[in-house]
């Protein structure tokens, strides 16, 4: 703790609250979110990138670690609950956002090899599978060459939105009084101890 925090009561209280958030609130909030990810997204799709949520878990955890759960605004400390709006789903996590916002329509899985076999050039060399909408003209070629049994629907097709951050708000609402109480108690102890030592 820096000495400047002890010079004002408000500064010290904000510091202590931030400390309680970091030690108690944020780890549990992250745990809730990862539990939601595990329960709602994992073990459903067996094929490889870009369609399998397992492949995004590591990156998602990194982004979650980088997420700023607290915000210092004037004399207040704000606990920010992540949502699909304020969480960083850019770059590699773009695909995940499609699933979380709800997928409209049916998609079918086609491997890159089969895609090339049909005479198309893969647009992305990183991916091993593509998802093709049921009304894509490519579907006619697939049916003609491989037959209807080839088509495997993507598991998240036409599925409603999934809220990975569900439960965090309730957790914060139910515990915020307790955290504030704890922060006040610690502030009181530190403030008293600082001035009892005769600091100026």
């Amino acid at each position, binding site marked *: 703790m820096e000495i400047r925090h002890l010079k004002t009561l408000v500064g010290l209280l904000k510091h202590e609250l931030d400390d309680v958030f970091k030690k108690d609130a944020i780890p549990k909030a992250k745990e809730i979110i990862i539990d939601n990810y595990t329960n709602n997204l994992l073990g459903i799709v067996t094929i490889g990138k*870009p369609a399998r949520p397992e492949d995004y878990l590591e990156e998602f955890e990194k982004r979650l670690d980088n997420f700023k759960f607290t915000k210092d605004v004037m004399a207040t400390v704000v606990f920010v609950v992540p949502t699909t*709006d304020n969480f960083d789903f850019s770059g590699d996590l*773009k*695909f995940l*956002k*499609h699933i979380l*916002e*709800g997928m*409209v*329509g*049916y*998609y079918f899985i086609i491997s890159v090899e089969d895609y090339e076999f049909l005479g*198309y050039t893969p*647009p992305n060399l990183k991916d091993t599978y*593509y*998802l*093709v*909408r049921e*009304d*894509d003209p*490519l579907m006619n070629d697939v049916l003609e060459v491989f037959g209807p049994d080839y088509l495997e629907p993507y598991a998240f097709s*036409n*599925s*409603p*939105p999934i*809220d990975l951050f*569900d439960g965090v708000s*309730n957790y914060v609402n139910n515990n915020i009084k307790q955290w504030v109480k704890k922060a006040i108690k610690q502030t009181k102890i530190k403030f008293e101890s600082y001035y009892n030592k005769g600091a100026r």
Partner: protein
Amino acid sequence: MSYEMRSLRKEDLSLYHYIKEVVLLDFIEVDEMIPLVYMPKLSSVDNDADPLTNILVYATETNTRPLPIERGRGWVYFDTVSGTTTTPCQPYTLVSGTRADGVPVVGTPEQSEMVIVYDSNFNVVSDTTYIIDYIDGRIVTDNATLDLAYVTYHWYYVSVVDEWEKVQSADSPVVVIDIFGTDKYGYQLGSGKKVFRKVNLHVFASSSPERKDITEALYDGLYLKSCPLYDFPLGDVLEYDGTFYGRKDNPNKLTSLFDRTSNKNVIGNLKFENVSARNIGLPPILSRNREEVMSDLNAYRSKVSFDLVSYTYS
């Protein structure tokens, strides 16, 4: 054993009617003088001497897009109070009469001005001689001597559905009502609960201006507002076959009213709290080129989120 709808189902249905019939009241279109086509496969004609023992079904031939009879749309089944220029809290006619089971109520009768049928000389055909299938847009009569040639009808432009899986069943614009969470708390000593339902309205529009209009209409229809929780003692407004409840056996519209009695277990209305709206922009990574993505339902999406709050006696 008697069975009654649970509160969640009544809230879902009440919200559905409020969104479709009140909030989106401005999004009603009219198709005028559309030819009626006799549907022999759906009809049943016995060819006996009595012309009143048949079932004759007429459907419309229309090129209108989106189709007025797609899922979540359909023909308008209530008259609005004439002369209103803005959307009032209760825009529908309220009269005294009875429900289909004979219980006296104050309710709303089946429309008389939203669907008009004409004969081949453009004379209006009395609406006591036929019934209407509002879901499929059909006219059904038992009188084989009737000359039914044209119909003018109002229809709901925005498809409102309450299941995500049905999004694809209609062309945009589509609004999906998704009640996805429930929390209940005590609010007083003794019995009674404060009930929170978490709701998302997913908007799938066909263009950016349309998305703006629908999203704003939904937001304004919810912000600082409430809607009644109906009791639905006889079920929904329309029967499974699309006809107005009770009208198949009863030509008098005043003795088959839609009962607007509120649920007795709820104090006041269903209130809308924490209303917020935002656009949903999804990156075009699923299809092979951007052109395809822009033509599908993902292109112009938005979401209106809110809490549906009610206080119950028990």
